[in-house]
């Protein structure tokens, strides 16, 4: 079962930390990625993220995702070299300036995507929602929307898999031709998926309402989400990373 956003059970410090501080750290890494100019800092941020994922017990999953993202990152690199053409040509159409811009973009793509994913893997969606409601006073309605969207990711991806299987068994040739050809074949299937997702979302709304959705307040959650020393430390690290990003 390939579920991109599924929570991995664990007891690491990252699992125990408050979801708010985890999100803060992830955002800090992203911000720092944008601010940082030098390769050492960019690669350092990447290494920090990977190291952090090992601390959270999701290291292998991260490396797998990183391998997948490298392909996307390589495409990004090629596109960027084609767009930025200032400077000396060093290879075919690639210029020295273009290569540098493209390399930055490629690495940034990795350091931008990874931290948020790692954060999701070590945080239960419900905890994320509850902590945002309790600590940041986010209205529950919005928090619920986000957790529900996360919950629907695996359900819809499975639904899509089964639709593709059913069509393949019928003889639709998803197993041949290039990616654009396959994409064109997939388009008509979006309609059934959309219809089933709208009715599913409506049913979930009803199920939630029938279990007191509108009665929920900031005090409802059985679990509490205090900010501890660990969380202050994590947020401190986040601020430090942003500062480093500005400097390097």
């Amino acid at each position: 079962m390939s579920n991109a956003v599924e929570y991995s059970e664990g007891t690491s410090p990252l699992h125990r930390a408050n979801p708010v501080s985890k999100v803060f750290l992830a955002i800090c890494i992203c911000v720092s990625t944008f601010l940082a100019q030098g390769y050492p800092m960019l690669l350092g941020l990447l290494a920090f993220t990977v190291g952090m994922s090992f601390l959270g017990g999701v290291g292998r999953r991260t490396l797998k995702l990183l391998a997948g993202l490298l392909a996307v990152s390589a495409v990004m690199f090629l596109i960027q070299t084609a767009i930025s053409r200032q400077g000396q040509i060093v290879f075919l159409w690639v210029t020295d300036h273009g290569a540098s811009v493209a390399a930055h973009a490629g690495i940034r793509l990795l350091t931008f995507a990874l931290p948020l994913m790692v954060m999701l893997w070590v945080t239960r969606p419900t905890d994320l929602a509850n902590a945002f409601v309790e600590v940041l006073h986010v209205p529950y309605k919005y928090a619920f929307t986000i957790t529900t969207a996360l919950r629907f990711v695996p359900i819809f991806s499975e639904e899509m898999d089964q639709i593709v299987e059913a069509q393949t068994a019928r003889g639709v040739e998803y197993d041949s031709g290039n990616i654009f050809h396959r994409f064109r074949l997939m388009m008509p299937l979006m309609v059934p998926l959309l219809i089933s997702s709208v009715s599913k979302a409506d049913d979930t709304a009803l199920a939630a309402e029938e279990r007191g959705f509108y009665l929920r307040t900031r005090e409802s959650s059985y679990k509490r989400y205090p900010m501890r020393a660990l969380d202050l430390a994590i947020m401190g690290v986040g601020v430090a990373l942003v500062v480093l990003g500005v400097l390097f």
Partner: protein
Amino acid sequence: MPAAATSAGGDEPVLSLRDVSFTYLEGEKPALSHFDLQVPQGDFLGIIGPSGAGKTTLAAVLSGAIPHHYRGTFQGVAMVCGMDTVEVELTDVSRAVGSVLQDIDAQMISSNVEDEMLYGLENFGVPHAEIPDRLEWALRTVGIQDLLHREVSTLSGGQKQKVAIAAILAIRPRVMVLDEPTAALDPASSRSVFETLRLLNEEEGITVVVIEQKVALLSEYCRHMAVLAEGSLRFHGTPREVFAHGEELRALGVDSPRVTRVSNQLARYGLTPTNEVCLNVEEAVETVARVVGDRGAGFEVARRTVSEEPPVGRPVLNFDHVGFSYGMGGASVEDLTFQVRHGELVGVIGQNGAGKTTTTKLINGLLRPSRGTVEVCGEKTTSQRTSQIARHVSTLFQDPDRQLCKNTVLEEVAFSLQLLGVADDVATERARSVVSRFALPEDAAPFSLSRGQRQIVALASVVVTEPDVLVLDEPTSGLDYRECMEVMAAVDEMRRKGCGVVMVCHDMEVVSDFASRLIVMANGRILADGAPADVFGDEELLARAYVSAPQVAQLSKRLADEVSPAFGGITEVHDIVEVTRGLARQ
């Protein structure tokens, strides 16, 4: 007994509908019209009826979703635990009435069992100090303490149903309304869900209202039954009272348990009193034994024998020591060896997770064997693309919606042929004849049709290709009796024309009626491969595969042992009745 304290006297019905009508905003006809129903405190009410009868609408009225969530025109008075549902909020109704929706994935709000359990408790303001006890009690009552820390996505269908029930139970409602809780479950899990409901009803005093298609199972558990058709209540009474109207029910498109058909037919021949309705095998054995008396010994009756010639010729499908395992998750299979010939319908039975669906995917080429070979019409599947295999193999999936993708029924059916390279005009012509044979509306959008009709559209788009091998994965789940018979009649016609059919099915009555051979699977292996009568006569085998024989097979076996050997091996209601008459006439 929590929740048992009703207002004075306590004989006031806990649910009461008076002249209730409801028309959905987008609907033309009322889904319920002038509906009256009283449900006493502590009842276990089963709701049955054909598709489109208004069962789900009734559940929505009882749980307050109508008029609060679904939009439309509501008339009449619905009283729930003393509240008029129009005058209070949905949340107030929900404190008293817990409801489990048909789509169990949508019913789950959290991705983790613990959070799912906590959700209602937190929202309804149960004091935090009480929560651990409540949670523990609900899990223990339903028998799923071990699931507390699991992710919902890793649970089986039966486990999800139980989590949903436990999450509602924790709120301590007085009434529980469930919409087809066993639709996606195998027989063993279905029974287990009903055992849980019985416990809640008897031990905790909770009033249970359950919509169900499996009439035989339902009649064993419920105290009363309500039969709906076209938005109104046709019958309401004990299962015995309701099933005494077997003929009328059949006309409405509602099945009766097979043993009930036996007793009803005996009654029609004047052999038993008309009010003697059997609901389970035990009762039917007693009734037949009494009718036959001591005339059972040493008598042979000429029975209608199955006049099918054994299938001959080369097999269309050949599995030779096939093995397949997923990297993770999914049911692996090991050492599968069997053949399917032209004109055979092979039923594949076994528990969920036994490897049945994996086997069907190995046939239609969605999976390739990692060990051994699969040959379709003499060619190995490993050397062909799935789209090439599709020329010989057609599959009807459990959920028709995954198969449908076109704007009209005709296009949908013709599309199957176009995919195989048939010219557009020829495809349309052939599609048109199939569409008219199933009496489907050519220009209707498939998604605007009912669930049963969509299944028939999917079937039509499978039949039109005239495949050598037809694979059916739970072809009758979610269909009512009439739709089920329509689908199976078409399948049987395909088989008689020479198609080799492989059918995965949990409904043992359907299997017993239509299969010419059975393959029994458990833990990814084939336990047995043989004639239905032999398989269903082997109790030890069935126990190992966690399936139970259909009622008629159970009945004939008991009767052969206890009353007369003449009953041995009978698989049809008609034959049981004929043998009984023959013996009684002596």
